[in-house]
């Protein structure tokens, strides 16, 4: 589902993020914790250094997810073409945005860019989620060889539509949280919302299978 160009771009960015993470950790007096600064450079409690491996992990997860989806597609035919296009754009966008986030975290932990408002990053991520989810319902349902994960085309299309709307609402909520919530509550709120969206999405996905003849 991803072409060679997108694959190498994503892999190069993952390698760069991992190298930057290792380099930053090697400079820390206590390698388990990373200094953190809030709005206007106000020092906050340090965060676990493991945060530096989240961004490359996210990209690797999506690379694996897209590859797995293409491998398990049943009689994809023409349906795979739009997914390939979407997958390439999606992977490159995600890779670029998380690389930016990683760069931002590392530079701020070094005491640089402290005047830049970290809320900007959340707003960008929210907008990205909205853009990616907006296009999702345009894709055809891709049948899976794993019967348990398959849906008929109409239910599949409805599921993609639902997923698209959920993603857009989550993105909007992230943008609004980034703009208006107090800085220290943003992370728990955004993570809780993301978890709720995932749970609702999974519940809808499997409720969609009920009464299915296959």
């Amino acid at each position, binding site marked *: 589902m991803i072409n060679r160009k997108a694959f190498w771009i994503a892999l190069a960015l993952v390698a760069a993020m991992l190298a930057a993470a290792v380099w930053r950790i090697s400079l820390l007096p206590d390698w388990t914790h990373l200094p953190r600064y809030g709005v206007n450079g106000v020092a906050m409690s340090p965060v676990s250094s493991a945060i530096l491996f989240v961004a490359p992990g996210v990209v690797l997860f999506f690379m694996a997810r897209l590859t797995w989806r293409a491998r398990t597609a049943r009689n994809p035919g*023409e349906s795979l073409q739009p997914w390939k296009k979407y997958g390439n754009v999606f992977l490159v966008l995600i890779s670029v945005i998380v690389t930016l986030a990683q760069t931002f975290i590392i530079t701020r932990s070094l005491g640089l860019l402290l005047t830049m408002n970290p809320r900007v990053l959340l707003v960008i991520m929210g907008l990205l989620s909205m853009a990616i*989810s*907006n*296009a*999702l*319902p*345009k894709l*055809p349902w891709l049948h899976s060889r794993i019967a348990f994960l398959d849906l008929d*085309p*109409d239910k599949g*299309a409805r599921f993609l*539509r639902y997923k*698209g*709307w959920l*993603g*857009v609402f989550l993105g909007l909520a992230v943008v609004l949280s980034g703009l208006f919530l107090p800085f220290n509550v943003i992370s728990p709120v955004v993570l809780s919302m993301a978890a709720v969206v995932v749970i609702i999405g999974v519940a809808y996905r499997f409720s969609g299978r009920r009464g299915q003849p296959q």
Partner: protein
Amino acid sequence: MNSVFKALSDPTRRHILQLLRKREMNAGEIAEHFAIAKPTLSAHFAVLREADLIGSQKQGTTITYRLKLSVLEDALLAFAETVGLGLPAAPKLRKETGKVR
């Protein structure tokens, strides 16, 4: 984006999109819901396809249409329906035994 607005401005085309929201349909099934000539309906399909709001797949002599609305386009469709853009919708007539009632 202009083509999307043009496509959504017509009530018949919006009605087609609402029908496809329920399930994929072929041209004949869609035509059953309208009392308009098939060439006119084909022209509506062409406008919707040009705006990338529907996708089509040809199997033998049958063309099956499916909805291809992004979230934004879906919201625009709902908005257009709410404010009632364009002319009044074509009457929902069924063709039976070749005669339009």
